[in-house]
């Protein structure tokens, strides 16, 4: 079993009301150091081996993200001992 992480963020030119709301709250709370916030989604998929990277890419492109407004990245984490998150640099594919 391999863990695949798909991260979906709004395209930079699309407004991100969620991130704006967090930034507003941080500013009101006096955390001046934070200059910008963007909020996106993170999916952790448990995929049986061998991982079909093309299929994952397609799942991300059609189901997890809407490419009209979102970008995504897919990271395939090499199989690791059960329950431990891999500390290794992930294999990163970019949409």
């Amino acid at each position, binding site marked *: 079993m391999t863990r695949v992480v798909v991260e979906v963020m709004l395209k930079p030119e699309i407004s991100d*009301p*969620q991130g704006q709301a967090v930034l*507003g*709250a941080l500013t009101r709370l006096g955390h001046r150091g934070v200059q910008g916030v963007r*909020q996106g989604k993170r999916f952790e998929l448990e995929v049986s081996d061998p991982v079909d990277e093309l299929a994952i890419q397609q799942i991300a492109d059609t189901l997890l993200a809407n490419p009209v407004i979102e970008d995504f990245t897919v990271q395939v984490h090499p199989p690791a001992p059960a329950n431990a998150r891999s500390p290794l640099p992930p294999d990163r594919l970019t949409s």
Partner: protein
Amino acid sequence: MTAAVPRPGSDDLAQVRVGIVTFPGSLDDGDAARAVRLAGGSPVALWHGTHDLDSVDAVILPGGFSYGDYLRAGAIASFSPIMREVIDAAKRGVPVLGICNGFQVLCESGLLPGALTRNAHLHFRNRDQRLRIAARTAWTGDFAEGVEIVVPVKNGEGRYVGTVETLDAVEAEGRVLARYVGGNPNGSARDIAGVTDPTGRIVGLMPHPEHAVEELTGPSTDGLGFFTSILVSISRAGAGTAA
């Protein structure tokens, strides 16, 4: 509902001042004020950005989408200036009712246990809901024990959750305020629709009693009981002594 409703219009009740907080994005604040008025009390508008509770006798945190609820329902509102005062006042014994978004704010503030999460079916859902009142509190004194009422429920993040220990403790201490009957609208743990703190003064409820106060616009007038309860309990204790 079988409970005796005290006469709205009595002078004692009219002197009870119930503060209703408006956060940016609050929606049911006007409805909560109407409900207090119809129950015979005096609603007082409170503004999120101030530290002024205006010496009210009780506080309602109304429904809505404070700050858009983009992060987690109620999360950002729980840090607003007025909430510092509400938390202090609550700890001094001022009764607080959180409805829907207000319930979420109370959980995020740590005044009530557990959390409210995305509905199990992932949809916002609005329907007329049967509830069984399960605890006697400052806000439910006018209801007969175990009575069933019908009020609207409407939320997207109303699924009450907590760790097994939290849920067990809430049940063991008799702090389940109300349970869903005839179908659980959002997947809440153990059909919990609302909870109370150990004193029975800080209360959170997901459904909307303020939308069941008039024959014309609600599915019933069962919701009035929450508002008459608090007015009566405060006027008995002597209004104007709380905040």
